[in-house]
């Protein structure tokens, strides 16, 4: 399978099953589109009015050489890998819901402004310790274990965060495990003390900020309705500076209320942030802020504009890192990882303040998918199996999609929320993902 696309006047080919990427001229695109169905003479004949015969001969030979080298029209040999289950299931990452409460009232919040469709509550230390014991026991031979402190707003329960970190490090040392901690915060409660702790212990920090003051404050107000931008931006800048701009993301959400989101990404870069992730909101059509199919043309143009600005700033020595444009073409994830995606429901689980286990943070509150709890150290085998067996070949729309090795079939929670079926991907999300991948590949071509 070969995906051809044109971006800012540059024609490119992605050979899906080898992973090879090529910059080509339009003639090669035309040849490639006929190559598998037609003979050489038929191709030359069909294209002779557009190109000279010498050029067509050259182009055809170059395509043929790359096919011979396995860099074009490579065969799909991954389905067997996707269905290999010879390794034991291990849990290697937990999302700890430290606080099911929040000090903001973000209008697009999937967690019902922190309560996750239940009562507002805080995780107690005994639950956190049990979660650490649980993941050590369930992680098998896996050395690296990730713990994300999530909410609601985890800084509302930061003393427990600190104690869990210390406990995990102590227990991990005895068990031969390496814990990596991350935290997601809205920044309202950041101060010198907790920033220092975060910078010392967390390998990654996600700082929520949507864009300029108007955009951010419209969607991310405090409980009293007032804005948050003026409070959090100085704190985020200080935190990023103190960790030498490493291991963090300023993370925003765009919605139908700010379709022209490229300017918001650039605003975050202008504030001095070097690690930026701004993502589309995921919401059903009846929400006023939802992104719909009709919005796609303008969003595609926004990604193209952003990619252009990204290249220009990089070339001018003012580059920044944009999460969705960061493809590692030579040392990225292995095919096994790409086939199965996020690992929710078996490698990655969410823990509620009460210690209940769910397939991921976005399923919390959906009691049909409660998988057990950290005290009994149980995991529902049938739910786990349904997630584990999910891969890009079990989803019919993914199997024939050129982008499947970059999104790994998309987010099962999004699919479940929008389509009522984990194996039926969320279409608007797919379209945006594909556009981002094309932009990322184009950036590689431009920056080398």
């Amino acid at each position, binding site marked *: 399978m070969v995906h051809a696309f044109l971006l800012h006047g540059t024609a490119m080919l992605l050979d899906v*099953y*080898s*992973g*090879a*990427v*090529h*910059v*080509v*001229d339009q003639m*090669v695109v035309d040849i490639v589109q006929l190559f598998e169905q037609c003979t050489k003479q038929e191709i030359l004949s069909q294209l002779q009015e557009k190109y000279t015969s010498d050029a067509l001969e*050259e182009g055809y030979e*170059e395509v043929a050489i790359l096919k011979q080298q*396995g860099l074009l029209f*490579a065969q799909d040999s*991954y389905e067997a*890998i996707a269905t290999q289950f010879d*390794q034991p299931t*291990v849990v*290697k*990452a937990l*999302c700890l819901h430290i606080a099911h409460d929040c000090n903001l009232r973000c209008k697009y919040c999937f967690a019902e402004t922190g309560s996750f469709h239940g009562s507002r509550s805080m995780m107690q230390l005994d639950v956190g310790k049990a979660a650490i014991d649980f993941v050590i026991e369930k992680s098998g031979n*896996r050395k*690296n274990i*990730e713990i994300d402190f999530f909410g609601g707003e985890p800084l509302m329960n930061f003393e427990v965060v600190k104690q869990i970190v210390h406990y995990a490090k102590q227990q991990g040392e005895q068990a031969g495990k390496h814990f990596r901690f991350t935290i*997601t915060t809205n920044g309202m409660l950041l101060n010198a003390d907790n920033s220092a702790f975060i910078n010392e212990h967390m390998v*990654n920090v*996600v700082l929520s900020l949507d864009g300029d003051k108007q955009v951010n404050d419209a969607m991310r107000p405090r409980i009293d309705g007032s804005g948050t931008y003026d409070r959090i931006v100085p704190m985020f800048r200080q935190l990023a500076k103190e960790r030498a701009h490493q291991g963090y*993301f300023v*993370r925003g959400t765009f919605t139908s209320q700010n379709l022209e989101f490229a300017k918001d990404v650039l605003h975050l870069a202008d504030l001095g942030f070097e690690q930026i*992730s701004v*993502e589309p*909101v995921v919401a059903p059509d009846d929400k006023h802020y939802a992104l719909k199919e009709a919005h796609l043309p303008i969003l595609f143009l926004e990604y193209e504009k952003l990619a252009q600005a990204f290249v220009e700033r990089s070339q001018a020595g003012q580059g920044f890192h944009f*999460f*969705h444009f*960061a493809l*590692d*073409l030579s*040392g*990225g*994830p*292995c*095919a*096994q*990882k*790409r086939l199965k*995606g*996020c*690992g929710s429901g078996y*490698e*990655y689980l969410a823990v509620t303040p009460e210690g209940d286990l769910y397939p991921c943070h*976005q399923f919390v509150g959906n009691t049909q998918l409660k998988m057990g709890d950290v005290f009994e150290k149980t995991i529902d085998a049938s739910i786990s199996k349904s997630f584990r067996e999910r891969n890009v070949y079990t989803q019919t729309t993914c199997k024939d999609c050129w982008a499947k*090795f*970059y*999104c*790994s*079939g998309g*987010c*099962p929670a999004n699919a479940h929320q929008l389509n009522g079926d984990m194996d039926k991907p969320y279409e608007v999300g797919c379209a945006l*993902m594909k556009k981002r991948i094309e932009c*990322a590949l184009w950036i590689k071509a431009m920056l080398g």
Partner: protein
Amino acid sequence: MKHIKTISTACLKDSAAHGGCGECQTSCQSACKTSCTVGNQKCEK
């Protein structure tokens, strides 16, 4: 080649031969939390 410039070779096939150790970061823990973005994850090897 005059008409084709290859900017990345067959990394996916190569990775299948040596991959699957599972020590890598869980994709959703990195920055997104609302999308499955795997292509930009790093390999731990």
